């Protein structure tokens, strides 16, 4: 994985803006955001519903294109990439974890995890081995053959996390990863993220969850599409392992 101390800046956004609509109906979902995320850093983005957190995450991961501004991943400017290049970027360098899990209902847990690996060109055998390792890592090796419909919410999200790690991405973006989970499942996911962070993975997490936010290296707050504040947890303060759930 990637080491924060040795890597420098992995993700950089400058004057990033995203507008929807036009004229009277113009909505500025992301407004002139500047952001730098170091390699190995865990960043939590917080804010009220509709403030533009998810839109920002989509821009950072190349799921959506900014209206203006610059976006760099490592040394590469990514806001002007073609759809195909953005797909390759998402395939190799970025992993996504969604609030709604977004697992393929027709594929079992293992096949869901294999999906990005196969897209990246791994052989079926190598993809299978990789998926087994990751499922073991998230504690679901005994559920590998189960369809998503046979898994609990927490288990589905752990499969989604394993899938996000399938191609050893430089950056994992998580959009309210515990938003649909009960407190026990939230705790499981929180521990997983803490483990990933300790291993040096770069994380950007949009969350309402104080536990997740507290475990981050840095927290930024958004309102009306713009950053309105940034805090760092007190040195040596442990993460809150008593999550309060969405909106809490």
């Amino acid at each position, binding site marked *: 994985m990637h080491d924060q101390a040795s890597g420098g800046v992995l993700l950089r956004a400058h004057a990033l803006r995203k507008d929807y609509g036009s004229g009277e109906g113009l909505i500025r979902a992301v407004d002139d955001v500047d952001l730098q995320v170091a390699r190995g850093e865990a960043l939590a983005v917080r804010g009220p519903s509709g403030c533009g957190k998810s839109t920002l995450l*989509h821009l950072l991961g190349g*799921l*959506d294109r900014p209206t203006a501004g610059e976006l760099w991943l490592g040394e590469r400017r990514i806001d002007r990439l073609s*759809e*195909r290049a953005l*797909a*390759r970027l*998402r*395939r*190799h360098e970025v992993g*996504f974890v*969604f*609030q*709604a899990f*977004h*697992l*393929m*209902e*027709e*594929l079992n847990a293992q*096949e869901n995890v294999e*999906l*990005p*690996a*196969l*897209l*990246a*060109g*791994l*052989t*079926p055998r190598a*993809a299978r081995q990789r998926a087994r390792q990751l499922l073991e890592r998230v504690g679901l090796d005994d559920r590998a053959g189960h369809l998503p419909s046979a898994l609990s919410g927490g288990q589905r999200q752990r499969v989604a996390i394993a*899938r996000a790690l399938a*191609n050893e991405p430089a950056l994992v973006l998580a959009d309210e990863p515990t938003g649909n989970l009960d407190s026990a499942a939230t705790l499981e996911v929180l521990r997983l993220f803490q483990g990933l962070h300790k291993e040096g993975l770069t994380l950007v997490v949009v969350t309402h969850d104080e536990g997740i936010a507290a475990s981050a290296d840095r927290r930024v707050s958004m309102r009306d599409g713009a950053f309105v504040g940034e805090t760092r947890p007190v040195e040596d303060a442990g993460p809150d392992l008593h999550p309060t759930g969405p909106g809490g």
Partner: protein
Amino acid sequence: MGNAFLVWRLAVKDIRHRPVLAALLLVAIAAGAATLTLGLALRGTADNPYARTRAATNGPDVVATDFNGDPQAPAQASDVVPLEHAPGVVAYSGPFPVTWASLRIGRTRATAAVEGRSAAPSAVDRPRLARGSWVRPGGVVVEAGFASALGLHVGDRLRLGGTSFEVVGIAVTVAFPSYPDSLGSFLVGSLSSYSLGLVWVAEADVARLAAVGSEPVFYYLDLKLDDSAAARAFANRYTTGSSSQQSSGPSATGGASTSPTTLTLYPWQLVRSQDVKLLARAQAVLYTGSWLLALLAIASVAVLVGGRMAEQTRRVGLLKAVGGTPNFVAVVLLCENVLVGLCAAAVGLLAGWLTAPSIAGPGAGLLGAPNPPSLTASSVGLVVALALGVAVAATLLPAIRAARQSTVAALGDSALAPRRSPRLIRLSSHLPVTLLLGARLALRRPWRLLLSVCSVAVMASGLVAVLIVRTTAAGVSPGPRVTQAVAIISAALVVLTAINAVFIAWSSALDARRPAALARALGATPRQVTLGMSAALALPAFFGALLGIPGGILIYEAPKHSGSTTIPSALSLTAVVVVTVLVIAVLTAVPVSIGAQRSVAEVLQSETT
């Protein structure tokens, strides 16, 4: 390799995940493929049974008769005797006396051509016994096609010209065309109906039957030539007199008729052509039907694929989110339908292959099974190309559109923005609330409604064409093969249209689930939503059914028809329109009402996740 494996896995798993949709898609394409297979497979299938029967019965190369078209004109065996020694003749049988008589079995009545035979087997035209024994005084042998049509068995009794006979045998021949094709026309020109069967009796019985019925006796001579290919020339050479009287008889295809005291000779090719004529008609029906079904299949697949795409929006978003390029996504969606198309081609080929013998079957009048349906590589290629073409044509645009959709929007499962026409909105504002709701929801997708109009129009055109066939041919049976072919096409058209109707309704309900839920949240009842949408979807069915009337006439008249077209009565055509609209309304009500029962909260909430 990984990508190919992944495309295969995603396609197969999704097909297995939604088996009903895949099955319906398969049925839609397979119906067209099967009909085309049937049409292609029928080519030449009748030749083999004819050849086998001809060999088994030592069938004549030429049949000569002194029947001159005038039942009152006397005929003598000596009229045809000189032909026995004509150059080129290597064997002969006869002359055999022939007359006709009314036939009765219980309440069933028919007309029979009665040929007198001796107990000894003849050198040429030895009717091959399928069952029982050969003729004897008081015992008759019935031509197998005729026996099959009348349900006669060995041991049954029948009455010929009022005299009771026992059926002692059932046999086949190629001296005459097999029943029910054109024996009447062949034997007696335009003097009799088509439904004339052949019965062999003891030679002495012919004169007796002719006397009872005051019918003439005429003679048939069966000739074998040294060069059977020269039969047509031989027949032309020895046919004497003019052929003017046989306007609807065999003269058009090689035989000729004469004035009294002259001879008529029929070459074996004429009998064969009569045996395969109805098959050719069935083939023409199947060809036309397969094009109709292909059109309907495209509409079905477009509807089904459109519906599936609406369900797969989030899947598309997910594939793109984990790194699938737009091309990859399009390939996955295309591959699924191509796979179904390939399976449908296989199913259609198999179904066509298996059905062909029953349509191309020799009938009871010829021996053995027909040629295995002659599916050449080019036929198979054509059917597969049709199936794949339908799948690709209907999938390509939706697949490309889905692949180009914004990943974020797809992940949010956002429905495509509906098109709104201010004029339609203004018009619908004058409707009662129920219809207004339905019209506003259904009119969100005008192209889908147009597809619905086209789909119903194709089906209605097919049904109207069938109706015209029945009306125009009133009183004259088009033959079992044509009837079977028409039945197959009609059933396939109705099934495909029903599938289309259900899926257009299902897609519309799926597409309109959120506005429909919103309408219910504001006070509309599920019944209002269901009734409104069903009514709104029945309206295109009405226009489609109306278009089907000129469409059906066009389909009937497109091929060259010798006779005039009889348009069915206004009542029949109105019935087609009304029944179509009612059936479509009922069919669409099912998926729409299921959609209307979904929890409002659940539907509205899904918009925000």
